[in-house]
């Protein structure tokens, strides 16, 4: 299954995909669209991405996780397109014989996904204003600089 999807993420299906009799724990991370802290209510977020590279990067991240925690089984999805307030934009699921491996590998995968996936989000506020955000949640300036100064 591709990692990118334009459909609502089916967390139960991801859990089913990794579950097995050898697994004693399943860790999940689900990232959801939330209201911004400084710009008012969010209507939705428009996610866009370099989909061919997202597939390659996510596959690489999963392979790295399985190399580091060999007994884990992994699944993940990232939404592309319009994602409404409260809906999941990303999900990472890791099954392992014991909880420590599952939790550690899940944390690794979401942190690497945030750092490496070529995905961008444009927040559309209730008033109609659109704001580009980076992966720390900061507003991206309208000019060409990589980000606002701290």
């Amino acid at each position, binding site marked *: 299954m591709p990692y990118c999807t334009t459909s609502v993420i089916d967390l139960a299906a991801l859990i089913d995909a990794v579950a097995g009799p050898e697994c004693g724990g399943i860790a999940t991370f689900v*990232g959801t669209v939330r209201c911004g802290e400084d710009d008012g209510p969010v209507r939705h977020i428009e996610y*866009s*991405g*370099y989909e*061919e*590279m997202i597939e*390659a990067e996510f596959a690489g991240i999963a392979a790295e996780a399985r190399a580091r925690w060999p007994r884990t089984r992994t699944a993940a999805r*990232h939404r592309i397109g319009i994602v409404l307030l409260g809906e999941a*934009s*990303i999900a990472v699921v890791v099954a392992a014989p014991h909880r420590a491996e599952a939790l550690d590998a899940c944390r690794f995968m*979401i942190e690497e*996904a*945030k*750092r*490496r*996936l*070529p*995905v*961008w*989000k*444009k927040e559309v506020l209730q008033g109609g204003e659109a704001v*580009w*955000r*980076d*992966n720390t949640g900061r507003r*991206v300036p309208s*000019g*060409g*600089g*990589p*980000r606002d100064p701290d």
Partner: protein
Amino acid sequence: MSILRIRCRLFARYAELLGRDEVTVELPAPAVVSDAVRRLRDVLPEGRLLPERPLVAVNQRHVLPGEPLADGDELALFPPLAGG
């Protein structure tokens, strides 16, 4: 002197700023990523809106500005990433 044809792709805010998501540039060999970025900034209308050192990928792999380019490479320029 050989010429490298590099397919450059622009994403998200950069595509919005420049009004296009793809352009091919020709560079004399040898060339590195920063040469292609400089060319884009010089030749595209609004090209100066691109940063001098954007995040970049070549053939779907994150690289640094000094990465050598080969004829037919795909260079992608990324605004700050925002996955998750």
